[in-house]
């Protein structure tokens, strides 16, 4: 059952349409093979810290990248980011923040909490594919993993 241990991408997105678009974009470039999708902040933390319904996961098997939406039910994206970046066991997981607008305060807050990248979800589908592809390659393939 250790299907959750070799994970490339954890996608944290509550909007199912956005999630589908993101997964499709990632799949197009073969980046979605080992992808887990959760739809709220609590579930995201459960996964990352291997607890709750992900309790039998090994916390040391870190996802290679977290795609994190900021507006999430239950636990806000910022809170998830803070929790991940302040725990030495998970601090090195690259977190890419996904958001709707370039609200300056969001950008600054995300980076100050340790976000590795920040992308605005474009309406333009082509741009969306392009953004997902670039960051997928960068964080999954080019970047040296800890």
């Amino acid at each position, binding site marked *: 059952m250790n299907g959750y241990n070799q994970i490339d991408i954890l996608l944290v997105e509550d*909007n199912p*349409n*956005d999630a*589908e*678009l993101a997964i*499709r974009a990632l799949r197009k470039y073969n980046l979605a093979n080992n992808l887990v999708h959760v739809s709220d902040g609590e579930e995201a933390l459960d996964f990352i810290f291997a607890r709750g319904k992900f309790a039998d996961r090994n916390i040391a098997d870190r996802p290679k990248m977290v795609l994190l939406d900021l*507006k999430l039910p239950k636990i806000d994206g910022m809170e998830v980011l803070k929790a991940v970046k302040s725990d030495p066991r998970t601090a090195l997981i690259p977190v890419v923040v996904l958001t*709707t*607008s370039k*609200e300056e305060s969001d950008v600054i807050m995300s980076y100050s909490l340790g976000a590795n990248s920040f992308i605005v*979800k*474009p*309406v*333009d*589908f*082509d741009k*969306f594919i392009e953004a997902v592809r670039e960051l997928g390659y960068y964080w999954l393939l080019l970047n040296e993993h800890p």
Partner: protein
Amino acid sequence: MNDERIAVLSALMESLPGTVVFALDREYRYTIFNELHRREMAKAWKAAIKVGDRMLDFITESGTRATAKASFDRALSGESFAEIRNRRETDIGYECSWGPVRDDAGGVIGVLAIVARGLLEESQDIAHLGGWEYDIPRARITWTPEVYRIYGVGSDYDPSDVKRDIGYYAPASAPVIAEAFRRAVEEGKGYDLELELIRSDGSRIWVRTMAFAEKEDGKVVRVSGNIMDITERKTAQLELAAMNAKLEQLVLERTNSLEATNRDLETFARTMTHDLKAPLRAIAGFSRMVAEDYGSIVNGEGKRRLGIVYDNAVKLDALISDLSSLSRIGRHELDKTRIAMAAMVRAMYYETASPDDLASIEFVIGDLPDANGDSALMRKVWGNLLSNAIKFTAQKAVRTIRVSAEKTDAEIKYTVRDNGIGFDPSNVGRLFGLFSRLHAEGEYSGTGAGLAIVKRIIELHKGRVGAEGAKGEGAAFWFSLPSEDTTMGGE
């Protein structure tokens, strides 16, 4: 006496400053008196005197009546004399002259009294200023009549009991005056205080009380001072202070409610942007997915229509972005820094122009003075003006865009001039309006918010915007920034 002599006498009596004059007949009835005496009697004995009234009847205090009668009788016996009398309430001495009034035959028919009250007491009375004095070696306090009036106590009140005097002050004021008085007596320190006093009838008044200490051989021997009823002024002052406080409270409430409204608006704009964009992403994304995944079964017309769905979603997205950025401008303080204009223009041009544009446009930057402004907002200004110039020269075989500046005493005017399609000068007024487009939608892209954003930003910088152009002959869009702002910070 004939009328003329009486008139002269009356005039004389009234013209003596601070002097009481009256005459009585042998029955102690008034034959004449001056205005000051009338006032004194009214005040001291609540008496409304008139000629013919027996003066002694008004003096209700037996000791004073006896003293007065003795003086009258002495004068009626024919003697003229002067005596220093103490006022009945105070220890302040004043001079009284008594003398007989004789008829033509030399018989005594009455008594004439002249009392010099002294100017100080008179003026204190007018100013409602009370005077007091503490004779330390004799442990005696004396008050002028006004002090009695201020305290609302009768003439039999003995002010020498300091504790009792202080007891008339309101609870909050009593310790203050007690300490001040102690320091005046023991250390020779004067004071000037505004305190609340409760008169004997229970009414509350405000007084200003001052004290000065006199020393002999380094020892305080005498403390004297004034006390004044300032209730009217103090009440007005307190009312004013209360009104000011209320006004401040009101301003604070207004500010708070405005700030709350502003926050609400901001939240609204942000939420609207966020919530409107999510469905748009789905519309654009899924229409594109259909076109890609079902390309084999959707024919050309179907693909065209899916394309329209997609394009409109993207267009609506641009509109929402522009509206949201327009509403954000001005809700924040300008963050002014020195801007190297030429460098910013160059950077914005390369950011805005596509490789094709770069290859086909002759782009010239003139001498652009630096200026102070909000750098993020000024980038938007240049971005909008340059993208317009790029867009509207697209159909020309030779494309030129020139950026120049003119400096006057009052302002620096920056101009972006292109050789594009231009505009009808009669439309210049509409150019900077929100969502006003001079060209059909299909012809040129854009939401029509760009110049409105430029205008809003420049107005925030207290500058002006404008445009000149002719149809088919290019356009020049300019904005100015005030000069004092552009020299600030130095070069």
